[in-house]
């Protein structure tokens, strides 16, 4: 005989399963902070510089003159040209075009990550402009190679920061970190932490509305809006903290 019970342990439900990744990650973060507080605090400071640089880059792009905008647009994977000249038959081939560009753009994003990881944050504004001109496969290849050559502990640690940014936990963690004593970096521990943090990515896959894109939508031409929209969004992909504020 069993009396009816409506009390179900949440650990046995799908809702708990969906949240379990975050819980696991949070525990790991706390553990990691105990070991690597100082390093994280230092990286956070450089991350603030990153934010400033990104903001500058967006302003540069938004205030570009027509000629610069056109240049940006033309080099942004030829999409605008494809759309302008689109015939009925051409419409059907757009998916192929998109696929090719998606790969290019992904490589380009990697370029930006590389530069960030190498500590060139002060140059990022310039890079942002240069980036729009650097979509040639050769240049992408060159930058990607540079990334591969720089697979250091710093890269791993920066990745931790990026994840913290995405989770919105950075500020609270920084405060905590300042109270911790300096502990030597243990690469193995960082690796383990990184694996857990990587799993946190699920929660932030849903992107926010393109607020900054809206800010530049008043520009005169559709081409300009398209090019700037692309560029701004690209930068936002790196600078999630800006969007989160």
């Amino acid at each position: 005989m069993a009396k009816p019970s409506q009390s179900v342990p949440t650990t046995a439900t799908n809702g708990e399963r969906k949240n379990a990744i975050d819980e696991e990650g949070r525990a790991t973060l706390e553990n990691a902070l105990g070991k690597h507080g100082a390093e994280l605090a230092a990286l956070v400071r450089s991350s603030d510089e990153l934010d400033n640089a990104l903001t500058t880059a967006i302003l540069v792009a938004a205030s570009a003159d027509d000629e610069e905008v056109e240049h940006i647009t033309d080099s942004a994977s030829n999409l605008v040209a494809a759309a302008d000249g689109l015939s009925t038959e051409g419409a059907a081939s757009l998916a192929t075009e998109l696929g090719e560009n998606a790969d290019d753009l992904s490589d380009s994003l990697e370029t930006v990550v590389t530069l960030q990881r190498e500590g060139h944050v002060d140059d990022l504004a310039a890079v942002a402009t240069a980036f729009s001109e650097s979509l040639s496969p050769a240049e992408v290849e060159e930058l990607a190679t540079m990334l591969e050559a720089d697979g250091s502990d710093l890269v791993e640690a920066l990745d931790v920061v990026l994840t913290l940014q995405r989770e919105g936990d950075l500020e609270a963690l920084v405060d905590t970190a300042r109270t911790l004593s300096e502990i030597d970096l243990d690469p193995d521990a960082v690796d383990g932490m990184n694996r857990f943090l990587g799993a946190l990515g699920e929660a932030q896959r849903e992107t926010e509305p393109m607020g900054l894109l809206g800010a530049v939508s008043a520009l005169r031409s559709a081409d300009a809006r398209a090019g700037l929209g692309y560029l701004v969004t690209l930068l936002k992909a790196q600078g999630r903290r800006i969007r989160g504020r």
Partner: protein
Amino acid sequence: MSDELDGVAGYMQEAKQQALENVEHVAEGVAADTLSEGKLFEIAQSIGDKRLEELNVADTTCGYCAVGCRFDLYSDGEEILAARPTAEEDAPVNGISTCVKGKFGYDFINSNDRLTAPLVRDEHGEFREATWDEALTRVAEGLGGIKETHGGEALSVIASSKATNEENYLMGKFARQVLGTNSVDNCNRLCHSSTVAGLAQTYGYGAASISTDDLEIADCILLTGSNTTEAHPVLATRIKQNVRDGADLLVFDPREIQIAEYADQYTQVNPGYDAVWINGITRYILNNDLQDDQFVEARTNGIEDVRESVQEFTPERVEEVTGVPPEEIASAAETIADADACVFGWTLGLTEHSHGTENVLAMANLAAVTGNLGKPGTGVSPFRGQNNVQGGGGDMGPLPDNFPGYQDVADDEIRAKFEDAWDCEISGEYGYYTTQMFLAADDDDIKGMYIIGENSALSEPGVNHAEDVLADLDFLVVQDLFVNETAQYADVVLPACSFVEKTGTFTNTDRTVQMVNKVMEPKGDSRPDWKILQDLANRMGRNWDYDDTAEIMEEVNSLTPLYGGISHERVEANGGLQWPCWDKDHPGTTRLYAEEFNTESGKAELQGVGYSEPAETPDDDYPFTLTTGRVLYQYHTGTMTHREEGIMQYTPSDFVEIHPDTADSLGVESGDLVTLESRRGEIVVPAQVTDRVGPDNVFVPIHFAESAVNRLTDEEHLDPAAATPEFKFSAVRLRAAGPEAEPTATAAETTMGDD
């Protein structure tokens, strides 16, 4: 589906996805100013196709009603994102059509309160999470202990018509082989078991004789007790298309339901006396020499018995009892007789009575007398309710009296075949039907139950009684997606998974066996029913070793002549196979009885049906008649649909339909709370004032735990042949509940999660 990657790789994976979105935004911005709408659509299609490449897609069969719609489901591994038409040759019943539930009703799969781990009771009697090992051990000990002490007959299994054919086959096998009981049954007992009994007695098979296509080529369709547009929307669409093209539609129903708007003749009948007006039509046909003499002579026995028995149903008596005027009996009879091909369709309005089998026998007589069987556009068509109640609930034999393929448990030769195949002894005595199990538990004859995917605490008649029974069992194990109202009484709850998380077959309402294909992995630690049953059987001393459901179907083939030639491979290749399908070379059977009936004589065995009436008729104390039923946007006890936000916005709560005259006499308007009281309980629900019902009748949907209309229905008076309860007729009284009243809430009302 996107791979989940760690660290930098994961970040870049996401960045790549974002880049693709960026490109789409660029395209949108440019295209909006420069391209025609036609081009925009083409671009949108191309982009959509590219994104869909990243999702899991599988064609599968709908898990709601038994129409058997097929479509492609799209999943990212976490949830169902879309349902879209599949290739038309793989969707023989629905083509590109789906109803609102099949299209959008999938939030339940990923809802927060979905059970993902087994539950057992702790020392305080509360649920706690358990490992599969612990939970299965407790079940084996709980059921095994009762078997050892009281014998297997003290145990019963309620199988699930939501589950696949293969799983239902195992549920029957588990009951008989592992537990040693014939008391295994399922939801068919609450709906169409009287159809099965009536049609099997007359024609040989307890199933629809038609193919769905017949609904589109018939010259005439008689519908009764079927709210087709709400309960079987896709079938209703096909019927309406045929009516648009000229077919005659006759609708006999106590409620002026939506399909009645399309009818050439709608006749409002008093509920509870269907055999009376059906016999009245048959009488008119026979007495006016409108029958199909050639068919009757060549293919039926018993016409004289029918002719004699219908004579008492004079037009005057029919009108007095059913409210149907003589001219409407005459016009319906002449329309049917004039038609070259007529289909007789019904749902639970005909069957959920204490004399449901007699209603079906009367209908079977009418179809046979008019020669409307075995030819294109003719036949009988009970519209089945649960997605797999035809196959899982009937064909696979989780039944107290039948093995798979409707092979009689009492037949020594048949029983020996199964004893040999399953290596066990099986009693020749029938077990308890579902409704009888709850009564037998009162007498202490049933002490333990294993309930799979069935919400008995809401769906049984007289649920006050059902709740007491569940609470008093020595041991109850429930296997479900949720801790539903029934599971709240369980000693152990085992987490099962839904139809999108497994592979197998369903059999639809026109006997078509169709593939169910896995679209996503099971949630958490939930498992398909067949795997749970296999683990449990092996803990209880058996050695089941099925690798997949295709292998289970091979065993079904070897023991079930009706399914002898139905394999997963053939079903997949053919886009469905209709039984009987005797062997691997048999093409399946589009339409039953083309040559002969499945009786010993090969003829339809007609039998006269006398007067019948509800077990409980209205009186001065309880002057109104309550009928229950479904609404379009909800499904059964709401386990699936109550977790769908959009659906809940549309039909969020219960109501009672009351005729305007009745509402006036009670002093209530739409929205006012009304108390309905029967001899078994009372509920309080808001009124919906409408002339859809007659002044002496009221209607309440079955879908809501909070009001639980089955508190009012009768668990004791069952159909003598099929043990179906009388859901469609209860004597009730009404009163305005007053401004301070609140709607009824059940003791076991679900309040958790996102429900």
